[in-house]
Each structure stands twice: as structure tokens, then as C-alpha cells.
């Protein structure tokens, strides 16, 4: 296996011969909890504009490693924009512009010398609508490995599919098209595709909103598992979901402002801001 690369070593590493999500991280002397406050991603005074329109205003947040951070807020509040500014997917939009800093391991990703292609190899993303390539299931998972110059092995593909809790359902048809799967399976295939090259952070943009409740709950279960190995940042419009699966919650409200950011329990039980409480209790939004 060539999956173990230098960037995972600093985060405790994992034993790659272990096919299922292992307790490796926990057993490597620390455990998930004790690393709680190590920040992997941080934004400082981040403003994002689409043309003349400001989508994010002065957003500063610290995203802890190996935790699930949920981003909630009403439509158009900049949740997705925030996510897209982390892995610079906004670069794809001609009119998008970012001011301020997004620090990944204390390096500003908007610095001149940062290559967005290299950045995205460390920060994977899963989209709202399942978007498997019109290729076989195997080729979908292998794509990321292939373009990142990593070896494509049956084990690597199996491992990614197992981590995405899809392996049992597709192990006999790895060569059939990814488009033939159901919506929920497609989304898990996209998760497998994103984690196969072993990123550090996984960004998820409303990954369950296009799915039925059963498929959605499978993905929710999966997310908590994934947090053992990856730092997960998930945008959701579903507050129960945020409450169920996240450790930290960021609440964006209209105008692209981050109003409150803290432990999920605190946000849902006793938020500091009246607007946040109004939003969470459904009085607004």
C-alpha cells in the first residue's frame, strides 16, 4: 500500500492495511478528544464577493481537526460560499473574489505560491447533488488516485468503498456504471471517490438534501465515522442533522455574517445571540 503519505503522519497516521475504519487514531496514544483544539483550518476576516455582491462578511472561524463542524443558516446566507472558499472552488467562478485569509495549517491558501490543484488534493469535497462520473464504479473511485499520481490498487478501492459503507452493495459490480446506482449509493460513491486519495479535510455541501430519509440517515451515520480520520465540514439546512452529527456549529445569518460559532450543544441549547435562538427555534429563516 502506498496510501500512507507524509501528510497523514503528522496527524497520527493510520494503518492502511486495516480495511475498515479502525480505532487506530484513538489507539495512537491520544484519541479523538484530546486533539480537540488543534486547529486545522482557520479563516480570518474573510470577505467573498460575487461581482458587486458580497456573499461573506468578515468571517473568522477556527475549524478543529477530526471533528464534524456543521454550518447552518438560511438560504443565501453564504454557507456554500464559505465551503467553496476553503478549497478555492470559487476560483472556477469568474466573478468571485476573496479578501482576508483562509489558513490551512497556518498557510494562507490565497497566497501567490499556493496551487489550488494541490490544495484540493488535501481538501476533498462532496456536493449537494450526487455527481458520479459516467464511468464504472471502480473508475470513479480510482479517478482521484490516478490524477494524484497514486497507485490504483484493488485494496485502495476496496478500502475507500468500505469507508463509505458502500462496498457490500457494489462489490460484485465494480465494473458497472456509477450512474446505475440509486441516489444514496451514488452519494456514497462520491464520498468514496473523495476519500480514496486520502485528503485531510472533507467538505460536504448539503450531502443529504437530494436524498430520501433512509439514504440520508445512512450518510449521517457515515459522517460520524469519517470524523475519526478526517476533519469534516458540513453545510446543512437541516438543523436536526447538525445537532445530531456535529461537534461544532457555525451559524450564518443573512448578509453572509458568521453570527455564532461554538460547541453544538451550546448553540442548540443556549446560544449567546437572540437571532441565533430565533433561527434555531424556527422563528426566523
Amino acid at each position, binding site marked *: 500500500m502506498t496510501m500512507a503519505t507524509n501528510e497523514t503522519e503528522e496527524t497520527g497516521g493510520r494503518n492502511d492495511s486495516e480495511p475498515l475504519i479502525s480505532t487506530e487514531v484513538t489507539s495512537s496514544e491520544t484519541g479523538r478528544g484530546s486533539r480537540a483544539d488543534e486547529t486545522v483550518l482557520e479563516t480570518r476576516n474573510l470577505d467573498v464577493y460575487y461581482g458587486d455582491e458580497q456573499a461573506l462578511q468578515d468571517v473568522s472561524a477556527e475549524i478543529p481537526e477530526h471533528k464534524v463542524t456543521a454550518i447552518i443558516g438560511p438560504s443565501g446566507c453564504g454557507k456554500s460560499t464559505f465551503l467553496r472558499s476553503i*478549497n478555492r*472552488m470559487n476560483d*472556477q467562478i*469568474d466573478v468571485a473574489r476573496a479578501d482576508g485569509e483562509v489558513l490551512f495549517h497556518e498557510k494562507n491558501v490565497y497566497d501567490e505560491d499556493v496551487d489550488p*490543484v*494541490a*490544495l*484540493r*488534493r488535501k481538501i*476533498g*469535497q462532496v*456536493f449537494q*447533488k450526487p*455527481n*458520479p*462520473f*459516467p*464511468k464504472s464504479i471502480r473508475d470513479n473511485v480510482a*479517478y*482521484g488516485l490516478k*490524477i*494524484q499520481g497514486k497507485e490504483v490498487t484493488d485494496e485502495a478501492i476496496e478500502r475507500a468503498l468500505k469507508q463509505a459503507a458502500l462496498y457490500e452493495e457494489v462489490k460484485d459490480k465494480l465494473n458497472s456504471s456509477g*450512474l446505475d446506482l440509486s441516489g444514496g449509493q451514488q452519494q456514497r460513491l*462520491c464520498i468514496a*471517490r*473523495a476519500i480514496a*486519495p486520502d485528503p485531510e479535510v472533507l*467538505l460536504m455541501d448539503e450531502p443529504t438534501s437530494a436524498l430520501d430519509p433512509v439514504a440520508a440517515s445512512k450518510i449521517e451515520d457515515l459522517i460520524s465515522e469519517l470524523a475519526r480520520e478526517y476533519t469534516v465540514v458540513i453545510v446543512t439546512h437541516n438543523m436536526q442533522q447538525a445537532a445530531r452529527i456535529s461537534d461544532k456549529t457555525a451559524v450564518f445569518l443573512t448578509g453572509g455574517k458568521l453570527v455564532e460559532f461554538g460547541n453544538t450543544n451550546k448553540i442548540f441549547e443556549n446560544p449567546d445571540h437572540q437571532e441565533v435562538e430565533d433561527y434555531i427555534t424556527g422563528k426566523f429563516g
Partner: protein
Amino acid sequence: MSTDTDHGLEITGDVADDQRRDRRIRRFLFGCTSITVLTTIAIFAVLFDNTWGFFFDATFSQWVRTSVLNLGVEGLTQRVSFIEFFTDTEWRPSHADDPRYGIPTLLAGTLLITVGAAFLAIPVGTAGALYLSEYASVRTRKYLKPTLEILAGVPTIVYGFFAVSFVTPVLLRPLLEIFGLSIGRNNALSAMVVVGVMTIPMVMSISEDAMNAVPDELRNGAYALGASKYSVSMNVVLPASISGVFASYILAVSRAIGETMAVTLAAGATANFTGNPLAEVQTMTAYMVTSARSTALVGSITYQSLFAVGLALFLITLVANLVNDYVKRRYREVYQ
């Protein structure tokens, strides 16, 4: 049921008028659509009828009228054997002593130029389409796409003139001289070049439409994995749009097969069974232009040969269209 209850649902008055108008409009629209179908059928009928007259001593309709309907069915005298038509490698219909009618000669000219043109148009067209769809800025595309469509609208005789006055003397001849080769005023190579250039916009424009139809979600999925633009173009966009891209190739090829004025001017009027691009060749279409203007008597073999060649062309392009249709259905990707 009593009829005196006024439920207002009968077909009377305004409602009836509306329905009559709907039927009239329907018939009118159907009529417009039928024109194209009827024209195709009529063209095929005329070609078939006269092609019969090329092989035998009467056209199909003459034969039916005189022999079959009067029931004095007479045997047909065959003027040109099918074997000669399909296998002879000479085409000289107006030769006084020994006229020969081997369509492979003209077919070779057509295929030579079509293949040569495809070698130019397909790679350049596909690369250009990828540029327009994946690399060009919105602004660049805004100006380039219409320019392409203008290029596609240049009358083909202009290309033919361009071949004779520029491509052959200024471009090809000095270039070939370096290798010690010479070409005449008319040659297949210059026709390949201009037909290739002529079909590039078609490949580019149709392929670009197909690439544009690939959903952005797929591109984003690849970019988010850290794919380079090149990888997204070659491994995601191109495979996902392959049915449309392939369709553009087939359309370009059938356009090259049917191309007439440019090849008549550029490639010449000497039927030549050869694969040598430096030679003068005559394509099926070029033969038709030349002989349609000649003084051959209506009803003579030379005159009727026009229709035989025409029918062959018709069938070739028909097959190309069927292939196109099949490919489209077979390889189309369905996105929800």
C-alpha cells in the same frame, strides 16, 4: 340524461371554432413537415428511375409504361454491367471507342479527399472545441463562437478558388519542392486542405455544444479532487460528450463526401484510381458538376451516368446518417 341542463360542456360555439382552428393549424404544420419528406422521396425516385436507365436501355418508368403495363414484357438490354460499374477502375464515360464506367475510380477520389480532410478537421476541431468549452474565458468564447459560424457560412466555391490561387501555388508547391516533389495546378492534397479547413468549424461548433451540455457538477467533482484542467477536459468532459463529438465527426465526413465546388476546382476533372494525394483526382460530385454542364444528350449513357453516381452518393450519405443516429443512441449518457 336530460339535455336541458346547462352544464356548458357541449362542443358548440366558441369551443367548436377553436377546435376547428386547431385542426386547420395542425394540418398546415403537418404539410410543412411533409415537404421535406416528400422531397427526399422524390429525389430518390428520380435518381432510381434514371439510374435504371443508365444500366438498361430504358428508364424504370419507361420500361414499366411500355413493357409491363402493355403486358408485352420485353427483356431489358443491359448497357452497363453491374460488375463493371462496381469493380472497374477506369471512369471515362465520354470516350469514343472504349467508354468505361467503374465507380471505384470516382469513389477513390472522394474517399481520398474525405479521409485527408478528416485527418485535419477532426483533431483540430476537437482541440478547438475543448479550448472553447474548457479553457477560453467567457469573453473569448463570446467572440470566437460567432466567428466560427461565419467561417462555416463561407460559400464553398470561395474555398475552391482559395485552393487554386493560394493553397497550391503559395503553400504546397514551395513546401513540396523542399522534398523534391512537384504538384500540378489540380491535386487532391489542396482539396484535402480546404475541405478540412472548411469542416473544422462544423466539428468545433457541434463538439463544443456537446461539451457545454456536460453538467458542471461533473467538472466540479473532478476539480474538487485536485484535477488539472487538462485532466478534466480529457478524462471527464470528452468521455461524457463523446456521442455528440462523434456526431460532429460523422456530419463533417458526410459534408466532405458531398462537398462539390471546392473539390471540383481544387482536385480537378481527371478520374484517377489512386491514393496519391499529389495526383489530380475527380470526385463523384466533381464528375457530376462537370458532366452536368457538358453537351451529353439526354438519355445517353453519359447523361444517365450522372444519376447513377448521384444515387451512389445519396446512399453513402444515407448510411453515414444512419451510423450517426445509431452512435447517438448507443453512446448517449443520461444525466438526471
